[in-house]
């Protein structure tokens, strides 16, 4: 039966009051989370790994030519779709040749082994990230510990960050990615079509006290992860000893992935 005019006005009035009082909803939500009912069955996790400034060292000398362990591990851990069409590909970490990674350092007489080298590339988690600067909604942002993050729920898919990133580290989901996920990892969200994604330095794993998936997957220990502000950290120990370079450092984005070649 259709509501009478009186009933309608009462409902409309109550709805208006209700929508004006969001704090009540928030209080209830907080209650639920504090009791820990948000993620039932979540494993008891180690304390979160924390740093002043997360960074990675890629020792490309240790990389074997046809090894893709780090890439497979990353893409499986983060439900990155395996899309065959290169135009629509989504990549968090992937292989490139030396001349493409370091165009300015490349020349005709460079050592054969370096020229042929396949180097893993990923988001550089820049200290001065242009992607964050250009994003119109704050969907991509930089955390205090330096990780450049993506909020897929905030992203409108304008793609200006793809244009702003000098490293080609960002992908947009041109199509619905879910049918292309090979093995679904229930511990990490999937994305929807039309939003941008990229490497997150495994912040989800750091929060559970686990090192990044690519770092653990590498049997040659070519990838090292740690706090670059901490002089005793593994990354700093390597950087102190070996000559390292960063991709397109002249652009001033201050990349935090260091390469040893």
């Amino acid at each position, binding site marked *: 039966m259709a509501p009478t005019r009186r009933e309608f006005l009462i409902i409309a009035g109550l709805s208006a009051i209700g929508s004006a009082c969001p704090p009540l909803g928030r209080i209830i939500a907080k209650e639920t989370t504090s009791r820990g009912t948000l993620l039932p069955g979540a494993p008891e996790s180690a304390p979160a790994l924390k740093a002043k400034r997360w960074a990675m060292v890629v020792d490309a000398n240790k990389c074997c030519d046809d090894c893709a362990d780090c890439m497979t591990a990353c893409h499986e851990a983060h439900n990155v779709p395996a899309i065959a*069409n*290169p*135009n*629509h*590909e989504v*990549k968090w970490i992937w292989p*490139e040749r030396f*001349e*493409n*990674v370091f*165009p300015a350092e490349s020349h005709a007489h460079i050592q054969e082994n370096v020229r042929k080298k396949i180097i893993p*590339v990923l988001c550089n988690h820049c200290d001065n990230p*242009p992607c*964050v*600067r*250009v*994003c*119109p*909604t*704050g*969907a991509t942002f930089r955390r205090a510990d330096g990780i450049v993050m993506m909020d897929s729920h*905030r*992203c*409108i*898919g*304008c*793609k*200006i960050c*793809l*244009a*702003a*990133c*000098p*490293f*080609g580290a960002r*992908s*947009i*989901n*041109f*199509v*619905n990615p879910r049918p292309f996920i090979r093995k679904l990892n229930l511990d990490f969200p999937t994305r*929807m*079509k*039309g*939003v*941008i994604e990229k490497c997150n330095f495994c912040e989800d794993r750091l929060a559970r006290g686990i090192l990044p998936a690519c770092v653990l997957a590498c049997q040659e220990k070519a990838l090292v992860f740690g706090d670059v502000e901490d002089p005793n950290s593994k990354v700093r120990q390597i950087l102190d000893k070996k000559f390292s370079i960063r991709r*397109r450092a002249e*652009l*001033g*984005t201050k990349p935090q992935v260091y390469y040893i070649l």
Partner: protein
Amino acid sequence: MLEKALTGSRRYGILVGILLALFGMGVYFYSRQLEYGLGLTGMSRDVSWGLYISQFTFLVGIAASAVMVVLPYYLHDYKAFGRITILGEFLAIAAVIMCVTFIFVNLGQPSRVLYVMFHPSLTSVLFWDMVVVSVYLVLNVVTGWTVLSSVKEGVPPPAWVKPFIYLSIPWAISIHTVTAFIYAGMPGRSFWLTAIMAPRFLAAAFASGPALLILLCFVLRRFGGFDAGKKAIDALATIVTYAFLTSIFFVLVELWTVFYSQVPDDMEHYRFLFVGLEGYNTIAHGMTVAVISAAAALVLLINPRTRKKDSFLAVACVLVFLSLWIEKGLGLMVTGFTPSPLGHLTRYTPTGPEVAIAIGIWAMGFLIITVLYKIFLSVREAAELD
């Protein structure tokens, strides 16, 4: 006054019908894009902006060019433009609405478009572009409509509208400057990373916009019984000529810097633009057409005998428009992405649905122009009868 758009000649009805049909086609294909995603277009990971954003950029210029009739009339009391200032403002309205629509269809998650307002990011040029473009739309709607209302009543425009008109002049410059800043502030895109981008945009805008306005005036004279007047057309043609020359000069200045300094990264992009790289020369073919059109247009425009003849002027305006549409459209867009920062060449070819959506938006724009100009003509006719 809106009711005047509802009646009209048979020819008006047919034109509106055709434009509505094309717009409907665009809506249909957009609904498919909504369902499937941006994968329906030719855009890719490497060339992540394409036809849509290129049309947006070009049309911001058309919108800004209204200032070329508003400024001489209101600041310099150039009476000859009195009859066409409203036409310039109405053209700006249509162009801005097209711009906003092109930005919208380029979004991967269009339902979230208002996040730009709910979660504004003050460092984002795209946010500021949305602000200046929206305000510019309001300014032109308010001024154009108010001035036309006073034409209808046979009274001078109310005094309160003057500040809005004056504000619209610097605002027009701002919309195209901010649009240029979207491109000119990206560290990894050397093709766009040039301080002359905004001046270049403005020069191109002040050529292409008035060229389109001249063509629209010719159409109105032929089919609408409205004569803009010889003096106004001559003045517009002079503006097109100087702006087009400036625009070409700016491109030559870029070429000098790039090829004399011989920085490889910068040269690669210009080689791609004009001759192509590794056999990928679709854009270069387009640019050949643009260069030939520009040369032919210059001959017709610089020579006063041809410039002052309507038939030659019309051809010149078509050539100017075409040339800049290519250069500032897909030329500017695709070349910025090719080669990619990693040195890869990825081909961009707009798909059928993508082109259909773009045609639909252009049809929508021309529909707005048609309706607004029809109202303008009917109001004038009625006012003259009184």
